[in-house]
């Protein structure tokens, strides 16, 4: 043995063990007793070697690297331990004598120190036997007598206790499970936070947007299981889809360019879609008089449109969905556009210029989209799928283009990088999609729609076969072109599609000659009764936890094609596309 290094100051034990001194020399850190000398149960790491080779002060006692010093709130040294409550003496890790107390283990496998536990020997059991008590010392630090820690007899370790302690150590697999549980809990918390901050508000602003019914408008949901049950568990449901150009149109004096009634019989899996031209001349409900269907929306929003369709056709509406076309553009732009090989040149002199910013909602604009591979932004993509005059084969060619765009959009949505864009997608839909259905209802409906053979969906447009156009007809808004329905042809279609039987109606105020009657051509007057507000807000309390619960449920389900539901955004995109395309193809987004 060489010279024994000595630490000046309070020495409570024998000289330091050389091995312990060497270990200390290689991983030294200073520990500062935070309390006054004599309160040795609280230490803070100060880092580095002793600043001085002189006598360490109580503030310069030493602790090896890599161990967080005990704090006042979590004492590691019992007050009755020598060097603990006594003076500022600090035991060197790995130099303590074994203790007899078995170590307790916390749920995560970390040592829990009882007042009777020797933490230092537990932390470095491999060196515990090598150094017995006392402070460590620096190699070559001559003349210092390291303070040593001499545990009381009751804390002496024995070989048998050590074996016992080893046997009681938590197995690795248990620790792994515990860590995984911790990770899952943390991930769940983070997920809940993610829902709340990114999706709760948009989804709450999109779904559950109940609009009060006007007087005389029957609510078919009153006698059904809806309102808590599965939307598909009952009988036939009819959904009114309305499309406008901008989010501003949901609450203001605006028009609805798209009016579609979808009927679904969950039991027979029958799906029908009735597209009513926006210029259809109808007798608006509530005493508003004769006007075009899109004007009815402008006068009374969802409530008046829904009531008018029930009054004039006998079709009870269970739910509605409203879409702003700009939402589609935003979605496509959020995914950085779509890349498409356009089948052929798209040329159209009469594409509706009805988007936001248009000076005249009845105006037209011209299109010329080149054929071949190309990148399309949201505006071009919308034009590509909406143009009606670019194909000799009419809507068949249009359907092909819609299918093509949906495939391209699906590719973008299936890209893992879209995860980072989901909050933006939610914001894109916020204000551009509204429905009185809940998110889970939309999800179930769209998932159900995917199980339907698209070719078997009955689709009727009340165009030239069921109506004719009257040009420059005098209306309250000035001379306008209107579409007059041929009720004799319309009623059988409605009766069959919606299962109405003799309840089907075609009350359009048109005479038997097919022309508007003088009484029917009433100008738009004040309604006999005050119309219901266009929008009454969500029926629920918008609880973010309700929304999160919905989304959890939605994401717990899976699409028939196995693709992700993207936090429920895919279902809302389906609704958006179906309305924008005016086609069931939109359900395949």
């Amino acid at each position: 043995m060489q010279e024994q290094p000595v630490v000046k100051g309070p020495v409570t034990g024998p000289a330091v063990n050389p091995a312990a001194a060497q270990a200390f020399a290689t991983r030294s850190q200073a520990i500062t007793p935070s309390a006054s000398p004599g309160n040795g149960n609280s230490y803070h790491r100060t880092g580095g070697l002793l600043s001085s080779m002189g006598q360490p002060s109580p503030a310069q006692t030493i602790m090896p690297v890599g161990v967080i010093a005990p704090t006042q709130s979590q004492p590691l040294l019992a007050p009755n331990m020598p060097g603990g409550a006594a003076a500022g003496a600090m035991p060197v890790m790995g130099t303590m004598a074994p203790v007899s107390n078995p170590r307790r283990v916390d749920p995560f496998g970390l040592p829990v120190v009882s007042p009777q536990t020797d933490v230092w020997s537990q932390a470095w059991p491999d060196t515990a036997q090598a150094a017995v008590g006392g402070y460590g010392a620096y190699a070559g630090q001559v003349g210092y007598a390291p303070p040593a820690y001499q545990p009381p007899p009751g804390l002496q370790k024995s070989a048998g206790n050590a074996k016992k302690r080893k046997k009681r150590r938590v197995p690795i697999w248990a620790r792994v499970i515990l860590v995984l549980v911790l990770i899952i809990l943390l991930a769940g918390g983070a997920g809940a936070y993610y829902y709340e901050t990114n999706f709760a508000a948009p989804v709450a602003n999109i779904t559950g947007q109940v609009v009060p019914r006007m007087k005389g408008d029957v609510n078919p949901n009153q006698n059904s299981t809806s309102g808590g049950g599965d939307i598909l568990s009952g009988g036939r449901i009819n959904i009114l889809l309305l499309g406008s150009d901008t989010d501003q149109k949901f609450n203001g004096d605006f028009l609805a360019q798209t009016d579609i009634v979808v009927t679904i019989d969950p039991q027979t899996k029958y799906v029908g879609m009735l597209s009513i031209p926006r210029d259809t001349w109808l007798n608006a409900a509530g005493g508003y008089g004769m006007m075009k269907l899109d004007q009815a929306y402008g006068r009374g929003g969802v409530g008046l449109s829904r009531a008018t369709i029930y009054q004039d056709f006998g079709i009870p509406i269970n739910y509605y969905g409203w879409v702003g076309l700009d939402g589609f553009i935003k979605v496509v732009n959020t995914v950085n556009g779509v890349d498409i090989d356009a089948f052929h040149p798209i040329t159209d002199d009469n594409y509706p210029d009805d988007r936001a910013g248009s000076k005249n909602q009845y105006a037209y604009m011209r299109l010329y989209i080149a054929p071949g591979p190309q990148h399309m932004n949201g505006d071009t993509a919308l034009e590509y799928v909406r143009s009606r005059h670019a194909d000799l084969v009419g809507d068949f060619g249009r359907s092909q283009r819609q299918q093509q765009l949906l495939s391209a959009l699906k590719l973008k949505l299936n890209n893992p990088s879209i995860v980072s864009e989901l909050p933006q997608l939610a914001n894109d839909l916020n204000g551009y999609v509204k429905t009185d259905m809940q998110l889970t209802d939309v999800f179930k409906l769209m998932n159900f729609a995917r199980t339907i053979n698209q070719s078997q969906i009955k689709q009727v447009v009340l165009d030239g076969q069921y109506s004719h156009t009257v040009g420059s007809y005098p209306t309250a808004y000035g001379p306008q072109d209107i579409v007059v329905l041929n009720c004799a042809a319309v009623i059988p279609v409605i009766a069959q599609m919606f299962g109405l039987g003799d309840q089907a109606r075609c009350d359009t105020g048109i005479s038997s000659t097919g022309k508007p009657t003088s009484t029917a051509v009433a100008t738009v007057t004040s309604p006999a009764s005050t119309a219901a507000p266009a929008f009454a807000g969500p029926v629920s309390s918008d609880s973010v936890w309700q929304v999160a619960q919905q989304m959890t449920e939605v994401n717990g389900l899976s699409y028939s094609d196995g693709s992700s539901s993207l936090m429920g955004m895919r279902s809302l995109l389906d609704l958006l596309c179906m309305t924008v395309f005016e086609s069931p193809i939109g359900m395949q987004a």
Partner: protein
Amino acid sequence: MKNRVSFRVAFLLVLVALAVQGCLGIGGSSNQGNFKPENTGNGQKISVNQATQAVFKGKIYFTQGRNLLVLDGSRTVKQLTHGEDVRDPAVSPDGKWIAFDVRYGDYANLVYMSVNGGPQHVIISGNGHYWTNSGGFPQDDFYWFGQPAWSDNSHLAFLSDFQKNFDWAQLGGDFASAPFVDMQIFSISITHTNLTGAEGKADSQIVAYADYGDGGDRDPMYRPGHPSQIIYTHYTYDKTGTNQVIQLYLEDANAIAQHPTMYSPGVEGSGLDPAVALTPPNVECIEPAFSPNGNWIAYIRRNPSTNSMGLYVMPVPSGDLTSNPNSPTTQKAALASYPESSLIMQGQFIGQPVWSPDGKQIAFLSYNNNEFDIWLANVSLNAKTNQYAMQGSPIQLTQGGVDADSRPFWTP
């Protein structure tokens, strides 16, 4: 023991990092080449491959973000237009002028300017207005122009819908109320400028008719060494009116003008045809480009079975194909070279091929990493097989995306 635990932890961390990297799509394919960003000042980024494999001679004109750019053999980029919607550049044979079309909402202008930029000369303005049409959709006299192609230093062929209120209206029915706007090919002298649409229509000569209902004609290009011959893509429907037919046609550019009563636009197969098909009707072939010597055609073929597109090169059929295009013998001869087409390369989206002036390279647009860029293929003619083949691998020339619906142009 501790070292082993640390090693395990490190190993697990590496695995987790790799998994996260894979899930997030970090990393991916590395670009082959040395791409140097060029400051075009148009708000978009474009980088040019400086590697020796990407060497080319001459200048390539193209558009990015609807701005006209030129990339020269030193692989530097210069922007020639700013803030306009420019498409389809084409340089005159003497290399002085560049023609293109500029879009303005409902119409386009056909313009030309110096190849170095500067003031633009509007040949025809497509501006117009809508007017009401009782009982039908509003009508208008706006016009589109597109894809100019020089026949000589003073005449251009171009696409337009000049005929929409005339030819189609004569057909009656829905076409009169909502006219088709299928583009046809016209030619005009650039000696007159600032023409209105009506004036431009009067000054233009019809070159190729369209069959209404499928968008009309595209990709006109005069055959080098044969200035009277023009090739183009013809979009139509078959006689049933339900199946799309897209073929490459070769035509005497003066056939209709010289025989105005012989030919008429309208329905496929309804009358005599001034053009002859070079590709069969059951295969969709688009975007033809003559080689500098006029003897070969690079074109794009769609392959629905593999959902891909291919760049092909075929020889121009021999013999006189334009004097009597309605002869069965001529029509058979015109299709004779199609089976000799050789596949240069294929991919998901490939388009807009253009030959280098020396005929040793073909530039084309390809879709990779979610963007369309200019790629180069070194090609050579195999004397034994008399077919073109690609030498080596295609080389990506630009990075950052270019307008895929706008045809590039390559000059010496």
